[in-house]
């Protein structure tokens, strides 16, 4: 008994040891959630709920408008089908039997021919089926797959959707059952838990739920909801959870596996699947799939969806017959879903920067929660480490020194967390208020330490300059003494000094921007040269103002929506850049490495397009986008720039340098063309891709003309502005507020700075693109 419990403990320990990083992140998240104040927690809940509602509504809108049109399409298809046979019936039994041969002219000869051929085809297929039946058994003929295909070919009109759905449910269950049966027979001696097809089961369960709900029309669902007095969403959730529970129970009971087996299987699964990426994915899945399921299943879309699924061939046939209508529908659906989705995400994003004007200062919002979070985190971690330590020492695993090495990560995190907590604790609003008198303003002269440091800053700067000069001279003299020519040394020093001074000239505007954004309006009015080197007092008021933390009497709530603008900029620049890089890489690969007719022509065209100046394309492109309905949507800013000839050209030229042998080797190893692209060509092209990425993200982040043309005309332009346009508007509205404008400029520049800083290695590598050696 004791050994059993010990085993269980060791299993749990192994589980916990499986992924330290995941556990650390989870612990931090737990402590973050634990310490959220009730009011803020409610805020978060409502924010989450509203986001999900938005998402649900969005899907419902799309379903109502566009699924409905598909629905019509399918309906038309079935009606036409039935009409065709009716007409054929009339053709034979009324006209031909009545010897009315004028009917040929009336129906048209081609149609008449089809009327003649159709019965023959039907007869032939009947004959085939019967001959098959006589040779083989009926059971082998009726596999679930064949049944499903046959079902798809039968047209079900709207009234009979429920019948089709019911049959489909049966077929799905039969499919799953026969699958498991087959596995069990073919692999003798295996338990059910080993052969159990998890993914198929989930698929079948979801399909069954979907179809089941379509059988009970949405009205019925409402009746049930009224009867048990529950929300439809809750019923849905209960259904899913119940099914999950039943399936787990079923596995444990019927698969005749012992508890420890389940545990070991579970442990293995966890070790393989319990990665940070998967957890994140699952989280996203829950966020996205649950509302999706809710919208589709509960909100009444389902019967239509099922109708479409059951009648898919008819819909496809109609798409073939009326392609333009279909494309039209698709384009509109795409645009609208993009906009609606974006709107939902934008709301969430605005919630992520959750500073409301009622909050006194950022410090007051963040500080208490952060301190408590950190402390809880540290305490949990200490307990966890202690637990591990005690467990290990009881089982005599390794010496103390070994254990300390093993727990180094935890100890480091504990120490860092404790230090951070101490700092945050010290910087509480009261201390801040005591120190600086104003939540946004730091007055050097009132600070006990900085009061003495501050006046020394100019001296400090001068000291640095002098020190640099002295170092340079000393270095020069030493070099000359060593025997190097003083001419070379002095010219080296001069060139470097020149470079440094040019750099200083280039940097001054940035410093000016940064400095003035931290100064009060009064200070900014003073001439730049007589302002002093450090802002005094140092104020974050301008930033608070652009993020809407402080209300001023001359602004409306709509003036500053920096969060929204930032979001729009990130979406526009990010989407364009990511897809541009992907598309260019693909196009480059094809143009560089694949043989096909017209490749050279295509490449020449790509180069030729670069000769057309972009401003020539403005009017035609605008008209085209307007016709497609993309004016006034962020998609209009994204779509035209997804393909760019220069990037394709760059990629092509780079990928030509990749030896063909790499590709041949992968081909022989059994990789498909796309895998070769992804696993060989893309990693080898990182230098050029990173350069493209950086160039394009900067260009699109700063892009001004297209957003101005496409977005400012729409009705909700306030929500669609990107940062550069917002800057332009603010600049024209608030000429006096230099500090605010410069603060916004800083906000625009900082992300680019961060990207450049993070990617500088790649830039260097990309600029000096090395040759590849075998």
């Amino acid at each position: 008994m004791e050994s059993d419990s010990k085993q269980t403990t060791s299993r749990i320990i192994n589980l916990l040891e499986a992924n330290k990083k995941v556990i650390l992140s989870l612990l931090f998240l737990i402590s973050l959630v634990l310490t959220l104040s009730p009011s803020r927690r409610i805020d978060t809940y409502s924010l989450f709920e509203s986001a999900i509602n938005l998402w649900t509504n969005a899907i419902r809108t799309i379903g109502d408008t566009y699924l409905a049109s598909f629905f019509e399409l399918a309906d038309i298809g079935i009606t036409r089908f039935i009409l065709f046979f009716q007409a054929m019936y009339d053709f034979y039994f009324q006209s031909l039997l009545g010897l009315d041969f004028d009917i040929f002219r009336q129906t048209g000869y081609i149609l008449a021919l089809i009327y003649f051929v159709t019965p023959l085809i039907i007869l032939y297929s009947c004959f085939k089926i019967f001959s098959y039946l006589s040779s083989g058994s009926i059971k082998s003929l009726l596999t679930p797959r064949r049944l499903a295909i046959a079902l798809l070919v039968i047209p079900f009109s709207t009234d009979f959707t429920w019948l089709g759905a019911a049959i489909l449910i049966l077929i799905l269950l039969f499919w799953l059952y026969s699958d498991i049966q087959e596995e069990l027979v073919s692999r003798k001696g295996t338990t059910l838990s080993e052969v159990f097809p998890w993914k198929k089961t989930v698929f079948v369960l979801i399909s069954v739920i979907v179809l089941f709900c379509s059988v009970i029309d949405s009205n019925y669902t409402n009746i049930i909801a009224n009867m048990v007095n529950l929300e439809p969403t809750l019923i849905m959730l209960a259904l899913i959870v119940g099914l999950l529970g039943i399936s787990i129970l079923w596995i444990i009971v019927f698969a005749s596996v012992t508890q420890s087996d389940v545990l070991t299987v579970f442990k293995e699964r966890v070790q393989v699947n319990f990665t940070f990426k998967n957890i994140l994915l699952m989280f996203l899945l829950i966020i996205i799939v649950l509302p999706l399921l809710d919208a589709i299943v509960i909100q009444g879309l389902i019967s239509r969806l099922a109708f479409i699924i059951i009648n898919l061939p008819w819909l496809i046939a109609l798409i073939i017959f009326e392609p333009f209508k279909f494309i039209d529908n698709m384009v509109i659906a795409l645009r609208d879903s993009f906009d609606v989705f974006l709107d939902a995400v934008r709301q969430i994003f605005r919630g992520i920067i959750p500073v409301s004007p009622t909050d006194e200062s950022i410090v007051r919002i963040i500080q208490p929660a952060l301190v408590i979070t950190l402390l809880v985190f540290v305490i949990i971690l200490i307990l966890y480490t202690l637990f591990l330590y005690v467990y290990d020492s009881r089982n005599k695993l390794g010496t103390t020194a070994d254990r300390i090495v093993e727990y180094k990560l935890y100890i480091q995190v504990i120490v860092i967390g404790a230090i951070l907590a101490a700092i945050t604790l010290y910087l509480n609003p009261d201390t801040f208020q005591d120190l600086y008198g104003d939540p946004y303003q730091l007055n050097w002269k009132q600070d006990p330490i900085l009061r003495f440091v501050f006046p020394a800053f100019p001296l400090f700067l001068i000291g640095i300059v002098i020190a640099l000069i002295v170092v340079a001279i000393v270095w020069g003299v030493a070099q000359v003494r060593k025997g190097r020519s003083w001419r070379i040394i002095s010219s080296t020093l001069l060139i470097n000094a020149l470079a440094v001074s040019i750099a200083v000239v280039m940097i001054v505007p940035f410093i000016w921007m940064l400095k003035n954004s931290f100064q009060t309006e009064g200070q900014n009015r003073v001439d730049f040269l007589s302002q002093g080197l450090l802002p005094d007092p140092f104020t974050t008021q301008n930033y608070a103002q652009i993020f809407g933390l402080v209300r001023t009497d001359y602004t409306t709530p709509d003036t500053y929506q920096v969060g929204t603008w930032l979001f729009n900029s990130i979406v526009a620049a990010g989407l364009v850049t990511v897809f541009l890089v992907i598309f260019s890489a693909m196009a480059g690969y094809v143009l560089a490495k694949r043989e096909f007719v017209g490749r050279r022509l295509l490449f020449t065209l790509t180069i030729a397009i670069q000769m057309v100046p972009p401003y020539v394309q403005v009017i035609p492109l605008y008209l085209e986008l307007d016709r497609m309905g993309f004016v006034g949507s962020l998609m209009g800013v994204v779509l035209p720039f997804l393909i760019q000839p220069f990037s394709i050209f760059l990629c092509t030229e780079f990928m030509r340098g990749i030896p063909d042998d790499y590709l041949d080797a992968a081909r022989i190893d059994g990789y498909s063309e796309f895998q070769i692209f992804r696993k060989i060509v893309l990693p080898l092209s990182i230098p050029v891709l990173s350069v493209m990425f950086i160039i394009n993200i900067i260009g699109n982040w700063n892009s001004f003309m297209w957003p101005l043309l496409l977005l400012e005309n729409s009705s909700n332009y306030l929500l669609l502005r990107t940062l550069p346009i917002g800057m332009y508007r603010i600049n024209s509205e608030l000429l006096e507020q230099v500090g605010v404008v410069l603060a916004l400029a800083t906000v625009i520049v900082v992300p680019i700075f961060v990207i450049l800083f993070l990617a500088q290695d790649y830039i260097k590598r990309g600029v000096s693109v090395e040759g590849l050696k075998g």
Partner: protein
Amino acid sequence: MAQVKMKNVVKQFSEKLVLDNINIDIADKELVVFVGPSGCGKSTAMRCVAGLEEVTSGVVYIDEKVVNTVPAKDRDIAMVFQNYALYPHMNVRDNIGFGLKARKILVDKDDPKAVPRKLRHAEVEAKVQRAAEILKIPDLLERKPSELSGGQQQRVAMGRAIVREPKVFLMDEPLSNLDAKLRAHMRTELKRLQIELGVTTIYVTHDQAEAMTLGDRIACMNDGIFQQIGTPEEVYDKPVNKFVAGFIGSPSMNFISGKLEGDTFVTSAFSLDLPTDMATKVIKNATNPDEVVLGIRPEDIEDREFALNPSSANTVSVKVMVRENYGSDIFLAVNVDSIDFNARVNTGTKARVGTDFDLVFDMSRIHIFDGSTEENLTI
């Protein structure tokens, strides 16, 4: 494991005929070397087997199965490239394991109902480890290819091929990027490995020494045609034509044009008596006895002093132009009138540059080639 067969294979690049109706039958576990000068089509022939090139006409069989339309990835072959094609962004472990992660293979061979599946991580690791041990590179597994020497890179490339346990190995001049000493060493290793693994192998090289030492059989190729396919001994001793005779053997065979007068081979400067049966055979087969080429390998010409049976019928008096001492023997470039040829003689020779000197031809080892068809008339 598998036979490879090429039947009437023709490969044409737009106008250029690269492979001209080639036929070869490679037995299971055999190592066949395609050898020939650059541009003769030997690499193309191999790429046709690999499936990297489509054949214009003809049939390629692997394991009795026509593979003309089978893509390279499904032919179950492994190839070693001249520049090794090691992916620079992966370390050695990933490079070797790369081919294992792609496709589904039949892992559980004992289980008749087993379906092909992808290898699990641990299985890949085990296979990589084993391949690394066979090639003696287990300590290099974490390195990037750029941190390896040429020989090590070569081993990794071999590892990538053997770890797959394919039906056929294809090697495209795998040793040509190594220095001479390492090449000789790797050649031995390669042969050992091939025998150990017992995998049918096609080996492409332009180096006749490699071909001679490695091959179970040699397929000597020129102008898109297999000139001769045979064991190294056959190709060396009984070359079917002048090209094969000149290509195989180092230093290469001497060719002396002349005519036949009865049993005697006559040039402008000297004459040699052929053995009678050889002479009758030659006269019977030759298109024109007045235009024939005598071929003799330098090692079959000896200093008169050390020759076995010197006589006036097989002795030529020459002038020594160049004397090179190889330690094991001495290499002479000699001249008679306008005829130049080389000889490899005993180190005890008294030949000096500029002096006249007597050389003896081993008449049993000469070849007579037809002047117009270049066919060997003596076999």
